[in-house]
């Protein structure tokens, strides 16, 4: 039997508490991996969709495909990272397993974090395909490999948390969450400088671009590949971290609010 008293706040108790929270979060994301990584709607939204977007742009722009690799990695991260939770959480609401997570002796932050973790790992795995394709097929050079790793990780985590945030909407219907999410993430492709440079879109679009996490993710990934970018990589990191924190806290509040 475990101790039921977590109120005493010595450093040791805090350490125990944090390890417990993290291992519970890890258990949640492992469960998601086994259960949801191969669900059809996740494969369609997370893998096929970015691939066809890429084809459309590559054909339309007549640009050498190799130069489109950074943008392809950015949207692959966006679509795969944010597709796990909007599928898994409504399903879990319907079969009531979500109540297990809501009634476990863990903080809501760990629940949000654990859910996001599975989207994060999934999208990093998926983004390896365009990464490797770039290297093998088009011999796209990478200027700053360590920056690329950081850029991909932060972008992935940011969009995974965004997916968890949208999944807070209290429905048992996957389609409902997905369509809300798509009204946000589809426009992001066009205003965040992924395939159309930000300088080429109308002023209002450029203003909105500043509020899109994809702008910073894409900017940093482009920097890692080419060495040139709109903002400094440090600013990109800062912006992505701020988005992650905002999404985490808003998600936490929404899950609490919608738990009547």
């Amino acid at each position, binding site marked *: *039997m*475990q*101790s*039921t*008293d*977590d*109120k005493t706040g010595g450093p040791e108790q805090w350490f125990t508490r944090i390890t*417990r929270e993290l*291992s*519970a979060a890890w*258990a*949640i994301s492992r*469960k998601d991996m*086994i*259960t949801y990584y191969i669900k059809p709607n996740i494969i369609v939204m997370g893998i096929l969709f970015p691939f066809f977007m890429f084809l459309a742009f590559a054909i339309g722009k007549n640009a050498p495909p190799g130069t489109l690799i950074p943008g392809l990695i950015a949207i692959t991260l966006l679509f795969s990272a944010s597709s796990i939770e909007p599928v898994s959480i409504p399903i879990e609401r319907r*079969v*009531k*397993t979500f*109540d*297990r*997570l*809501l*009634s*476990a*002796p*863990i*903080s809501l932050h760990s629940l949000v974090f654990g859910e996001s973790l599975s989207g994060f790992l999934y999208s990093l795995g998926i983004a390896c395909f365009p990464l490797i394709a770039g290297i093998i097929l088009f011999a796209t050079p990478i200027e700053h490999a360590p920056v690329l790793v950081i850029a991909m990780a932060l972008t992935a985590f940011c969009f995974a948390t965004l997916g968890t945030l949208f999944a807070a909407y209290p429905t048992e219907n996957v389609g409902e969450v997905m369509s809300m999410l798509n009204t946000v993430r589809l426009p992001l492709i066009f205003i965040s400088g992924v395939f159309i440079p930000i300088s080429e879109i109308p002023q209002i679009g450029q203003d909105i671009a500043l509020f899109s996490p994809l702008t910073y993710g894409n900017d940093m990934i482009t920097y890692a590949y080419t060495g040139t970018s709109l903002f400094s990589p440090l600013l990109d990191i800062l912006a992505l971290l701020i988005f992650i924190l905002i999404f985490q806290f808003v998600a936490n509040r929404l899950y609490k609010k919608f*738990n*009547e």
Partner: protein
Amino acid sequence: MHAIEVSHLTKRFGTLTALNDVNFSVDVGETFGFLGPNGAGKTTTIRILTGISYPTTGTATIFGHDIGRDTIAARQSMGIVSETSNVYDDLTAWQNMIFSAELYHVRRDIREKKATELLTTFDLYERRDDKVHGFSKGMKRRLTIAMGLVNSPLLLFLDEPTSGLDVQSNLIIRDVITGLIHEGVTVFLTTHNIEEANLMCDRVAIINRGTVAAIDAPERLKKTIQSVQSVVSFDHSSADQLADVSRLPMVNDALKEGDKFRLYTEDPATVIESVMEYARSGNLRVISISTLGPSLEDVFIKLTGLQRTGGMVHAID
């Protein structure tokens, strides 16, 4: 300290009052039943006590921990078995157990031992590596309860544990719960099955439309009812006999149950005499006659104002 203490709990969903000023406490080691028809507010109560839902007003503490403010500590010693068997279909029985143990921070060295022990108890160990997907309703129910016990809870919430199950699963579940009660585990169970409440609970709260109508030991609840029942059967029965026997002197109410009649009265001696008289005049033979004390069902009907419809109000599954 009480295991559960609930004070002035009210829960509204929009204009619907699902719980209306509910007060009760459950002692450590006690088996406490929430008995009420569908929609009475039983599940809502459990959801609030486990911190999934919040009360509109009022408070609840679990072993002294306020469920709203000290949620994690309050939950650590709980086992929760919800109304639907909420297992992960795409995981195996074993993975389900381990996942549940991880959520409750059960130590690594204890996890596997506990999972083995519980799966064996619930007769699922042979199937531990099968995905739950193909399990029967009863097997899923047993796994749900096993998952609720993986952290060796001091307080177990059971929301309709045996509702609609096969006999084998029912027997295993009742056995396990009885064992836990002997070990001193506090049990809070909801049921719409009157016999279950009568058999298992130290005390029962009868709840209807969000209001607790009475809380007491089953036997003491029965004592609040005056009437006793005489069960009579004749050598041939027909439906119109019901109207006749219900008009006999001192019979308050009469029911036809199969080939028998159940007569409610406060004066069984007079009723037996008039039944014999009725039988003689109608050329019938009385095959058997017996007199019973009031049942928990009578208390339930009296307090909830539900109607007897044809036979039983309770669902014996």
